[in-house]
């Protein structure tokens, strides 16, 4: 029980750290979000593969269409978070990421005919209220792009979870090295494909700049050669990301599902603590973050906890 809690807390710590470092990278180092996320994912996949060692399930993983859809969604989700972090703090992003709660309830009701229970209905009200108030708290001049990327990230996150739950190789992988290997293959192939696509786009942008004028977010050759992108991505990919994934695998193996979900709903507070420490060290400016954001965030977390309690009670009966 305690080991599960410790492992879940460690997972939250590394997740919060990676979110705050992504914010630092996007604000201070002028990295290109797509390139940065793709390279970070590639390096962390490389570390995962080195940790896992050679073994089975590689070929089947690559042949599965789930792999490609999951990997693409995973990279898309990370990128949309990175774009959102340009506008909001990591704490607000993590609070707003709880959009997944009402969205997944709605989607599972529409597509899977899964009726929400009493606790789901009670819990979703404070979650929606909290999301509404935090959403309206975002400064008006950046609200639309910020909300766009936050909603996009939440949808990508739900799709990612849905595909991950049905990924045959991922489900068949029972031990940690196999899970790490399967994840490593999935993330590496998709991030490499993204990098290749971005390289082609950069070449196209360089060859015919007039034709690609409307796509300012596409990288240029200079973005590829930005040393900050490389150094920050490699540092994050080598140190934080693989640890986050490793502890996540361990925590979901040791801790009960409800325990992990309960602790993961506390992630925004962990992120806030991390952002506060970074701001004290002068690495981050969190003036955007208001006390009301934290209060409404508490409302979201309370709603999420009610729903977790409902699931726990439902499983006991």
């Amino acid at each position, binding site marked *: 029980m305690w080991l599960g809690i410790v492992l879940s807390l460690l997972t939250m710590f590394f997740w919060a750290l990676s979110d705050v470092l992504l914010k630092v990278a996007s604000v201070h180092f002028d990295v290109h979000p797509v390139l940065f996320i793709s390279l970070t994912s590639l390096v962390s996949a*490389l570390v995962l*593969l080195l940790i896992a060692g050679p073994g*089975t399930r590689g*070929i089947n993983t*690559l042949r599965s269409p789930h792999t490609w859809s999951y990997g693409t969604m995973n990279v898309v989700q990370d990128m949309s978070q990175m774009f959102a972090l340009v506008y909001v703090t990591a704490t607000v992003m993590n609070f707003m990421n709880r959009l997944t709660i009402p969205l997944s309830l709605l989607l599972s009701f529409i597509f899977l005919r899964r009726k929400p229970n009493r606790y789901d209905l009670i819990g979703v009200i404070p979650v929606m209220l909290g999301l509404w108030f935090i959403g309206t708290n975002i400064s008006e001049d950046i609200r639309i792009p910020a909300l766009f990327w936050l909603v996009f990230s939440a949808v990508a996150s739900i799709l990612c979870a849905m595909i991950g739950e049905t990924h045959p190789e991922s489900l068949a992988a029972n031990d940690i090295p196999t899970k790490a290997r399967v994840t490593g293959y999935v993330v*590496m192939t998709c991030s490499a494909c993204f990098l290749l696509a971005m390289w082609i786009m950069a070449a196209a942008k360089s060859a015919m700049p007039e034709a690609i004028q409307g796509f300012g977010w596409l990288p240029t050759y200079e973005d590829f*050669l930005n040393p900050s992108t490389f150094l920050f991505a490699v540092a994050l990919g080598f140190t934080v990301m693989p640890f986050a994934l490793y502890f996540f695998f361990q925590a979901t193996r040791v801790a009960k599902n409800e325990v992990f979900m309960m602790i993961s709903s506390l992630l925004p507070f962990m992120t806030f603590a991390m952002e506060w420490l970074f701001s004290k060290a002068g690495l981050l400016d969190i003036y955007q973050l208001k006390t009301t954001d934290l209060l409404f965030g508490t409302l979201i977390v309370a709603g999420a906890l009610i729903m977790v309690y409902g699931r726990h009670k439902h499983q006991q009966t």
Partner: protein
Amino acid sequence: MAKNRPQAKVIDFGTARKHVKPATEAKATGTSQPKPFLETWLKNHEDSQSVVQENLSLKQQKRRLEEERDSLIPSIPESTLYYTAIFFGLIITMSWLIGSLLWGKS
């Protein structure tokens, strides 16, 4: 002449009936010692079944081979795939490092 005449076959129903075994007796004998026809039939049936199974597995193998041929990912040993992935990841990272060091603007 009459003596040389072949004897006409006369069916003696009484004797014939004596040779007919009761149904239960025949059934019992049949179970303990299968007649050659039944044995052959059973053997042929088993043979045909094994041929059917063999055909099925051949079809499965053919389908798998076709799937593998259609797939972009060739059938290579897992260890080769692993080391290829590691090599590929290292090459991308190293070339990016060299590119940033040589042509990157800090």
